Structures are given as structure tokens and as C-alpha cells.
């Protein structure tokens, strides 16, 4: 899973740090365990020694473990803080999103994501965003808790009814990125997927404009059908 947003770069780095830390702990504990089990068997003539580990040893081991935990804590804080930074929109990005991020509302509902763009256009399932542009998703839910998760673009966040949660990302490449919902939300949870299509700023502009006029046309048609009495 190659990262395609500055925040996910940091998450990837921290994931590697976590992997190394976990490997060190697993190897150290299990190597010591296997060594002890092989070397000190009574069949091999090992005699029990009196317990020698005094307060100093305990203190030293405790201090070493504290230092290890503190190092991981510091690294975790540094990279989490970097991952939280809001990147600025780049040269090829949307001009109107220079000063502040492009805000799009993402609504989780059983079992579909709905995206509302600033110009009142909306789309279901597929989110279209401009490349190199800072996008801030406002996550809300109309029913149960959902988790928005497109791992190549951003860390996952929950959409909790009654609350607004935020995801910030800046896609660095055009393409389609897959995602899914990551909290059990009922029967069709596994099918609750989404995709993010990253396009150029111009294509984005024309997409939301077309989407807006299509929706308006559809609404006008429904209204006219009702007025003509063809729809009850």
C-alpha cells in the first residue's frame, strides 16, 4: 500500500518503527525463553542456583524498560503530530483551496457514503477530488457509527451520529483509490465500500458543475411531472 498523501507517509514511517519495536521485544523475550528452556534442563544436570536478583537488578531492568517505552512514546508523539499537520495546496491544485482546505461533507449511512460538495452537488459511493489540493472531509452519520477508511490517502476516522469528525489529505497523484467502512454497521457492512477518484483541478471543477446541473435538471423534471399531475 503505497502512500499518496503527506499524512500517510508519516503513518507508514511510524508503522515501520512500531514493527521494529515489536520485533525487538518478541525476539528478545522468546530468545531468552528458548535459551533458558534448553540450557537449564534437569536432564542436562543443571542444579538450582539460589535466587540472586536483588533490588538493583530489578531497578536496572525497570529503568531500561522505562527508557524503551519513553523512546517509543517520543517517536509516537513526533510522527503522530506530523501526520496531523494540514498540508498546503500545491501548484497544480485547486486555486480556490489555496488559503483554506476544500471542505467536503462525507455522510455515512447504512450502507453507502454520500459526499456533499461546496456547490451543493453531491455524489454517492465515489468521491471526486482535485489532485495536489488539501481536502478536509467532515464526517457525519445519519444512523449508526461508520468508519471512513481509504488507507492510501489518510488514517481512518469514525463518523459518529451527533458528532463531526475530520479527515485531511492531499492526494499527490491522479487515479482511483479504494476504501471501505471499518466498523460493523449491520447486515451489508462488508459491502459498504467507497472510492476516491483523484482528477486534475479543471476536471474537478467541471465534474461538480456537471453534477450540480444534472441534479438540478433531475429535480426540475420531477417538479414538472408533479405539476403536470403525472406523478402523484
Amino acid at each position, binding site marked *: 500500500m503505497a502512500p499518496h498523501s503527506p499524512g500517510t507517509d508519516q503513518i507508514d514511517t511510524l508503522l515501520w518503527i512500531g514493527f521494529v519495536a515489536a520485533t525487538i521485544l518478541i525476539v528478545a523475550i522468546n530468545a531468552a525463553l528458548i535459551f533458558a528452556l534448553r540450557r537449564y534442563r534437569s536432564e542436562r544436570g543443571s542444579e538450582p542456583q539460589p535466587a540472586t536478583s536483588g533490588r538493583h537488578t530489578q531497578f536496572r531492568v525497570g529503568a531500561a524498560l522505562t527508557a524503551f517505552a519513553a523512546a517509543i512514546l517520543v517517536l*509516537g508523539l513526533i510522527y503522530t503530530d506530523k501526520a496531523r499537520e494540514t498540508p498546503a495546496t500545491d501548484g497544480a491544485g485547486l486555486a480556490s483551496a489555496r488559503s483554506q482546505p476544500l471542505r467536503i461533507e462525507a455522510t455515512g449511512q447504512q450502507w453507502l457514503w454520500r459526499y456533499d460538495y461546496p456547490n451543493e452537488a453531491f455524489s454517492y459511493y465515489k468521491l471526486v477530488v482535485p489532485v495536489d489540493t488539501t481536502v478536509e472531509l467532515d464526517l457525519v452519520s445519519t444512523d449508526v457509527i461508520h468508519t471512513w477508511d481509504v488507507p492510501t490517502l489518510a488514517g481512518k476516522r469514525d463518523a459518529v451520529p451527533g458528532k463531526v469528525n475530520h479527515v485531511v489529505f492531499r492526494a499527490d497523484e491522479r487515479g482511483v483509490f479504494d476504501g471501505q467502512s471499518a466498523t*460493523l454497521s449491520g447486515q451489508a457492512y462488508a459491502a459498504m465500500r467507497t472510492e476516491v477518484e483523484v482528477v486534475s483541478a479543471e476536471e474537478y471543477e467541471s465534474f461538480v458543475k456537471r453534477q450540480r446541473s444534472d441534479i438540478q435538471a433531475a429535480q426540475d423534471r420531477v417538479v414538472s411531472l408533479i405539476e403536470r399531475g403525472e406523478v402523484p
Partner: protein
Amino acid sequence: MTRPPGEIVADGYPRKRPRWIELATSADHKDVGRVMIAAALGFLFIALVELLLMRLQLAIPENTLLTPVAFNRMLSLYGATAIFLFAIPLALGFFYYLVPLQIGARGTALPRLGQLGLWLYLAGATVLYSGFFFTPTEAGVNPLAPLSELAFLSNNGVDAWAAATGLATLGFVLVSIDLVATLRRLRAPGMAWRRLPVFSWAAAICSWLMLAIGPIMLAAITMLLIDRNFDGIFFADGSGGAPLLWEHLSWIFFTGAYMLILITALAAIAEIVPAFSGRPLVGRGTVIGSLAAIAVVGTLAWMQNMLTSPIGIGWMYYAMVMSLALIVPFGLIFFNLISTMVGGSLQLRAPLLFAAGAISMISIGLASEVSHSMVAVAWRLHNTVDATAATHFALVGGSVFGGFAALHYWYPKLTGRTMGETLARISFWTMAIGTLVAFVPLFLAGTDHGQVVDAYKFFSSTEVGTENLIATIGAFVLTIGILLTLANAIVSRSGGAHAGHDQWGGDSLEWFTLSPPEPHNFDVLPDVRSARPMQDIREAIAHSTARAEAAPRETQPVA
């Protein structure tokens, strides 16, 4: 009328009742503990069946073996069974059986309370599985509101879940009250807290922990029931309720229960390792202090499960500090357990084998949790199968490997028989291979491909087919290994080699009683003078025997 001399008068004595009535009506801590342990192991079997059904569904992409609803029901029942009906009662069952024996008491302080606790737990189990007569719960392992609210799951399943886990949790709280009272009031003369065996210390820590987290869960469950049945709004958004409240309350309980299971397992291992190393536990005080620290700090890290929720970044950092702080107490315990082996004279019998397996599996699970503790990593790995794998390594390591170590170690005390050693070895290696094959692929599927938890199917486009197929095979191997030990336990009850009262040369007082112990536990309450009372007793016997042999026989024995 005169009776001939020597006749035994039996009139007026109640007839001996059948064994099962004795067990079902007894408030003796040994009977209650035995039923609790046996029931918990039975539910382990049921949980395995549910796990295998889920793994079969996830063996190939887009499988249609189970419907989504059936899968969600298996998932929810599996979670409730594994945690509420297997892991917690197994831990409490061992505590309840052993604590009076270890502290030199003739029973518990409040036996009827403990008996009620057992039956509330069994009533909860009955309620959960009576769900099959209408509709089992389908809201997940932790039924997050609002999904668990009436508006989204309008059948009775969640009500059954809430009633079942509520009854069981109330039972655990009652058992814990009895344990706390027993540990405070009924210690034998000289059994000061500083001389208490590590396992009894763990019982005190876990009982207090359950007294802290149990009522919180009971409150949450009551609120959920009020929401569902009496138009409550505790967890409903928009009318003053808060879905996040359920997350906080339930995660406090589940995180505390996770710690309780690990504390129990590590304390049992801390009894087993010295007995099979031939030397006392290194750093006894540190180990006990670390167990207490895990209970407090671990439970305070509950927001570790909520790092993707809309909570402030400050709370996320708080959760990270708390979970990373756990490295110190867990590390110290592992260090002292292994230090006890180093320089010992190890007898690699089944209890030590399972204990070593438990240390290994728990270390893999907890080390993976270290990376999950870092906030940004949780944003990637939260609710992926990587988290499932880490949790299962820690809990299978603690509850199953640790539980089986305890079972092999104390089985002679429980039944008067020893479990078959060969079968134990075969079972251990099958389980060890099964656990690794079942859960290591999930680490890969979770980190590399972000496969999400709890989903009834995965798509072939996500490229996790191989990992899931291997995991399913591993789950079957693990199950075979577990079934071998369960079969061993059943067969050895009548077919195992007879055990002595002091089967392994343990240091604590349960080995002073007969195997199985008399109803009153001790004919004579021992006078405790150190943290190793059985060692003192063995030395005293050796001393007096030596003196008797050295002294010349002055008188002939009376014929």
C-alpha cells in the same frame, strides 16, 4: 431393646445424595470453582465451533456459506462466549477454587454469595443461547450504540445479549466480593499479605478490578436495556444522548477484562515456573507490584480502543502514554519469569510447557499492541485483522495456553488424578503451530492490505485470499489441539495416574491438603512463617525424620 456392641447406628443420618445434586446445591468453594472451570471449558468448545464457522466463511473471497446475518450472529455469540462465558469465568473459577486453599482457610467468607455468582453466570449463559429459540444477537463483539439500539436492530437479540452479559457480570461481581472478603478475613495465622502466594495476590487484584469495572458494565447494560425497552435516550443521538458514552463505558470493561485475563495467566505461570525450576520466584515483590500496576494502568488505557473516534487529540495522547507505560510492568514480569528459569533445574512437564507457550504467545500479542498504541499507527491498523491477530495472540496465549497450564498444574488437586503427559505434549505442539498459522497471516492481511474486522466477506480484488485460507487452516489445527487437551481432561478424570497431595513440589498451601481436598480443606491449620510455607513443612518433616532415625530406639513398640 439392647443393641449388640460394635454396631454402627445409621438411623437419622441423611442418605448420601447423588453427586450431581451435591455439586448443584453445594456452596463449598471447591464445588463452585470446579463447576465454574468445567462450564468455562465447555464454552471454550462452543466458542471454537463459532470461530470455525466464521473462518470457513472467510476461507475464500466472496463466499456464500453464511448469510451476512448468520455471520454477524456467529460473530456476536463468539465474542460474548469467549469473553463472558469462557475467559473471565475460567480465571475466577481457578481463583475461587484455590484462594482458600492457598491462604489456609476452611472455606470462603461468604459462600452463598459465591454460589449465587456461579448460578448467575450459568443463567446468563442460558439466556444467551436461548437466543437461538428466537433471534440471536447480531450487533457484534462489542455492540456499539446506536447499532445496538431498537431503531436499528429491532429483534430481541440484543436484549438477550444485554440480559445474558448483565447476569454473568453480576455473577462475577458477587464472586469477586466473596474473594475480597475471604482474602481479607480468613488468612491462616501468619499468612501476612507479604507472604501471600502470587496467585492469591492476583486474585485480590483481579477481584478489586472486577469490583471497579463490573458495575460500570452493568450500568451500561442497564442503560441499553432502558433505551431499547422503555424509550430511553442514553445512547441515542439528537435528543441529549451520546453514542460515545457506550463506547467509553463498554471499553473500560473490555479493557479491564483483557487485563484481568492476562494478570490471571501471568500469576498462574508465576506459580508454575518456580515449581518446575526447583527455586523460588525471582523478584517476587516486583512481580506482584507489576500485576497491580497492570490492573490500574491497563484499565486506564481504555481509550486505546477509541483512537479513531471524535475525541480530542489530548485524550488520544493520554491513551498512548497509558498503554506504552504497560511495557514496564509486563517487561518486568517476563524478565523475572525467565530469570527464575535461568539457573534453575527445569523439569519440562506439561504445565511448564504450556506456561512457556503462554509466555511466548502473550509476548507476540503484547509486542504487536505496542505498535497499535502509537496514535497514528492506530489510525491505520484500528479495526483491521491485524488488531484481531494481536488480541488473539494475547488472549489465546493468556486464556487458552495460560488456562491449560493452570489446568495441567492444578488438575491433580482438583481431581486426584494427573493428566496424560503424552497427549498434553501432542496437544501443546498442535496448538502452538495452529495459533501461529491461524494468526500470523492476519498480521499481513491487516498491515499490507487493510482487511477490516467483522466483515462477513472480503473481495478477491483486495488480494488477501491466500492469507485468509491459511488462517482458516490454522484455526482448524488450533481447534484440534485444544480438543485434545479437553479430551485429555475428560479421560484423565477416571483414567489418569493417581496423584499425591504434593504432586509437583509447589510452595503454597494447597499442596498441604489431600488431592482432592476434604470438604473442610485442612485438618490442622498450618502456622505460616514465610512466603514458602510448603517448603518449611517439607524441611520440618525431613528434619524430624532425620532426628528420629539418628536417635537410638530405646523402647520396643507396643505389640
